């Protein structure tokens, strides 16, 4: 089946469908990871986006049930150069194509994803449409232009859970409430590894309800879209600062930034990959980090009297981490939980444990 990806700047890419049929709009972004397509597909932060993989050969090792990062696929469409018709791995349970079909997600192959990436690098992340139904290029470009995009849209409510749930382990030492704005399972796994009971709550849970759960710490999770559009979480965050130790990841950092009076802005094409060098300013050490964000906290907008910059991106000098100078609050823009990507930054979970320990004492 033929499929077309049309961009709002009028550029059109033709390929073949290997997933579900249909038509979906989204912001098109590229991801430079060479492994980890399954984790990318199930990362809720991609809600509202069509993801193109720069690595050309995708689907090689199939899909297994262990490596999912959330309960389903949230992204709007998946674009690759060559889809592998064979899934070769002792852990593979089904093919990528079948997985996309089951989840009713469009997958397109035969696209020159390098050309597409260059297009995005020059013009920035763009609104786009992916279709197997409409083959009229003009009509598709028009649809892309008319689509809503990401700015000002609350996508968190689309990915957050409806009801809270608890994950307990043995010998749990701390209770962490995870405000689910699109949390990845690996974050929960990292807490479990460190003997934390996690209570995952919907994103619209009020600060009073959270406090009532008597948490030792609060995790502001990653999530999709524009942080400025989730005003209710920002409000909740503002009320929690100083009361309980808080650790923010990705969207969590952006919401913290806003709650502490800073500003956020949209990056040209964002950071989506697993090879971004980030320097921990406190030690001078560099970590290879996992990144997936289109928005960023404006470094200059932060009140430096209260906030210390802890991490910086070595590629473009954007803000990657910050910490309140007096209150138990810190955050990073990248993904210390990895999944997919390197485990270099796991130490931040240890820092959070230390912070909870100190606060408890």
């Amino acid at each position, binding site marked *: 089946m033929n499929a077309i990806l049309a961009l709002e700047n009028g550029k059109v890419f033709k390929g073949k469908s290997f997933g579900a049929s249909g038509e979906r709009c989204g912001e098109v972004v*590229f991801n*430079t*990871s*060479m*492994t*980890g397509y*399954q*984790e990318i597909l199930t990362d809720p932060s991609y809600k509202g986006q069509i993801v193109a993989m*720069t*690595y*050309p*050969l995708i689907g*090689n*090792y199939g899909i*297994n049930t*262990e*490596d999912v990062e959330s309960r389903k696929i949230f992204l709007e469409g998946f674009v690759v*150069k*060559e889809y*592998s*018709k*064979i899934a*070769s*791995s*002792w*852990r593979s349970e089904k093919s990528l194509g079948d997985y996309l079909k089951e989840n009713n997600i469009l997958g397109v192959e035969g696209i*020159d*994803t*390098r*050309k597409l*990436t*260059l297009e995005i*690098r020059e013009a920035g992340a763009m609104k786009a449409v992916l279709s197997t139904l409409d083959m009229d290029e003009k009509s598709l470009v028009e649809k892309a232009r008319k689509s809503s995009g990401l700015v000002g849209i609350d996508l968190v409510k689309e990915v957050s859970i409806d009801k809270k749930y608890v994950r307990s382990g043995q010998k749990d030492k701390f209770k962490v409430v995870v405000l689910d704005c699109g949390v990845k399972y690996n974050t929960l796994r990292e807490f479990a590894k460190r003997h934390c009971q996690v209570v995952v709550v919907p994103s619209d849970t009020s600060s009073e309800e959270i406090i009532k759960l008597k948490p030792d710490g609060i995790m502001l999770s990653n999530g999709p879209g524009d942080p400025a559009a989730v005003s209710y979480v920002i409000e909740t965050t503002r009320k929690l600062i100083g009361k309980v130790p808080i650790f923010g990841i990705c969207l969590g950092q952006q919401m913290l930034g806003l709650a502490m009076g800073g500003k956020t802005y949209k990056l040209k094409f964002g950071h989506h*990959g*697993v*090879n*971004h*060098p980030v*320097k921990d300013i406190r030690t*001078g*050490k*560099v970590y*290879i980090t996992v990144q997936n964000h289109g928005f960023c906290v404006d470094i200059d907008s932060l009140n430096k009297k209260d906030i210390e910059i802890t991490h910086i991106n*070595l*590629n473009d000098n954007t803000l990657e981490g910050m910490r309140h100078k007096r209150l138990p609050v810190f955050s990073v823009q990248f993904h210390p939980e*990895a*999944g*997919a*990507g*390197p*485990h270099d930054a796991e130490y931040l979970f240890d820092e959070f444990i230390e912070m909870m320990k100190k606060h408890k004492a």
Partner: protein
Amino acid sequence: MPKRTDIKKILIIGSGPIVIGQACEFDYSGTQACKVLKQEGFEVVLVNSNPATIMTDPELADKTYIEPITVDAITKIIAKERPDALLPTLGGQTALNAAVNLDKAGVLKKYKVETIGANIKAIKKGEDRRLFKQAMEKIGLDLPKSDKAYNLEDAIEVAKRIGFPVIIRPSFTLGGTGGSVAYNLEEFRGLAKRGLEASMISEILIEESVVGWKEFELEVMRDLKDNVVIICSIENFDPMGVHTGDSITVAPVQTLTDREYQKMRDAAIACIREIGVETGGSNIQFALNPENGRMVIIEMNPRVSRSSALASKATGFPIAKIAAKLAVGFTLDEIPNDITKETPACFEPAIDYCVVKIPRFTFEKFASADSTLTVSMKSVGEAMSIGRTFKEALQKGLRSLEIKKFGLESMLFNSLLDIEIQNGTMEEILQKLRVPNAERIFYVGDAFRAGMDIEKIHELTKIDRWFLHNIKEIIECEKEICLSKDNLNETILKKAKEFGFSDRQLAKILGKKEEEIFSLRKKYNIEPAFKLVDTCAAEFQAFTPYYYSSYDK
């Protein structure tokens, strides 16, 4: 950390004459080092006995000694030149061995020469299999079961304990010389004896066979601040049992999930730290059981290796050049990425193409040599190719070998339209698949032409099904081309070009002239695009004009 100022004069040891297992790749790395260190204001003294090298060009080092790479000769040079430091990690195994011997002779201590890159302790820990095993066990990494022996009697006892087949690896040799696989006691006796003789210290390691497992390599770099990055991941097309130098290898890895890859990455980082290679590149090899994913570490080279040259060209990341800078104190975040200029060298290259390296053999020149491929290296060279798909890169690589094959052509069949299977044909295919040999890749193609399926070929070769599937797609495309006869339309021709078929190969398949295919291609406007190797999958602008061709739009 800025450049060290306490050292002024550095001695670099080259790799000496070209032999199987150690060729011009170390001239490449040594030349890079000379250039960089001179640029940084160090006085460079070079010793290499091979005049047919770029590094021995008079302008490259401050002083060049064309002398044998022996303890005696180098001792005299050290006594005369009095260098502050010795950089032994860029001249292959020869340089590394020379450094160890200089240390043993007390020369380095006597003249207060510091080894930079990797210190003697780290070199020994990486190279001595017993120390390596201890170190890996300490950090919790799994290894094949093994033990070592110094004489035949002990060797037999060890082999019986581990169970056949076993691998015999002599310590301190060049390019795996003397290494072999023994399937029974009878074979073992002869092979163990030869191994003991090949080792500089009459020592062999007898190891659980992981023949047939998937084989991987990671190219790792570390700096004095303990930043560690993986430059390139490599997956071997030929499973364990064939020396990496004789294997078709592919970058990046193709058949590992992110979880498995990250586990390997973590292991590689832990390994370089534990071995204690302070700065520069190391090559770390792993084997993985395809049935259950058990991963074992096989070995590490605490130096720039043959694979480093490949990894540099495969990613655009100049490993030898950066390794030289790290050796004199720079850290990865202080060195800019030459290709992007704006971003630092402290990152992991993202590539958006597939790289295939294919070994080149010349068995025709060595009439008595056994052309079976084993754990000792036999190839005399290699070709690398880049394509947007494995299929494209594989076929480009095969025609780069200059062995009169212009892609994945047939060994056995003249007419591809109706494959004629004669008496003995299947037997020949089975034999060529079962025992690794220089032409196996072509026989895999012929096996598909003869109607064999992926499972059967996998059973015989243990080559991963993903690679086999891709070869099958090439053969199916070839069939489509055959069937199109005089009606080679735009769709089929375009697909053929995307699958890496050359015009000449297509002409041969169709019984036409190469010019005819060329004109047809012009008529349909099917032209290759030239894409950049930029270390970053197009995320940042690249300034280095390093291209590959691909029929991708």
